[in-house]
């Protein structure tokens, strides 16, 4: 079993839809939860970062962490064609130098005008 599971999609939605992206994980030591966005032919960029459980909102994006269920989500409201990208969840435990970070496989999202 992989430490981090993420449905690779692809996911296609119309412009303006609410998008839900999810990851599950098995390592209860994970405390830091990240979402990276990767445009085609580019490297990933950090989109959202959450520590422990709870919600975090940034504009149209909301990250949720449920540690009891080992489940994290990223919601995108009023999705735009510019949101079309691959979204990677990532998580790490305690190491301050990030060498324990584990990534999901990435979900490919297309938002159609």
């Amino acid at each position, binding site marked *: 079993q992989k430490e*981090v599971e*993420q449905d*690779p999609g692809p996911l296609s939605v119309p412009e303006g839809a609410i998008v839900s992206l999810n990851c599950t994980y098995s390592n209860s030591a994970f405390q*830091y939860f*990240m979402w*990276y966005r990767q445009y085609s*032919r*580019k*490297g*990933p*960029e*950090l989109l959202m*970062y959450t520590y422990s459980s709870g919600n975090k909102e940034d504009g149209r994006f909301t990250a949720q962490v449920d540690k009891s269920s080992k489940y994290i989500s990223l919601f995108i409201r009023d999705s735009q064609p510019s949101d079309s990208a691959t979204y*990677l969840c*990532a998580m*790490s435990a305690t190491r*301050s*130098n*990030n*060498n324990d*970070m584990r*990534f*999901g*496989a*990435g979900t490919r999202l297309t938002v159609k005008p």
Partner: protein
Amino acid sequence: DVKVTQSSRYLVKRTGEKVFLECVQDMDHENMFWYRQDPGLGLRLIYFSYDVKMKEKGDIPEGYSVSREKKERFSLILESASTNQTSMYLCASSLTGARKAFFGQGTRLTVV
């Protein structure tokens, strides 16, 4: 604007060749990483360095080595390239204590 720069976007190499992938960061970060990205598998850590001349194996180090002679530069070496090393290679850097990693644009390596 902070930057992680990988020397090549695309590379085609022959089986058995020694391959060098170079990465430079301009942010004075202590930590540098090499990942490979494959469909359905996500990013997997090959090697990690937390200081000049210091390195640690990641999850899939077999067939690879690294070099970090200067703080800003981290090189990945494929000692004898094989077809199963055809992949997207991503370099990243981060500050100790910060959770944000900065990635380069990736090198798509094809071994024929």
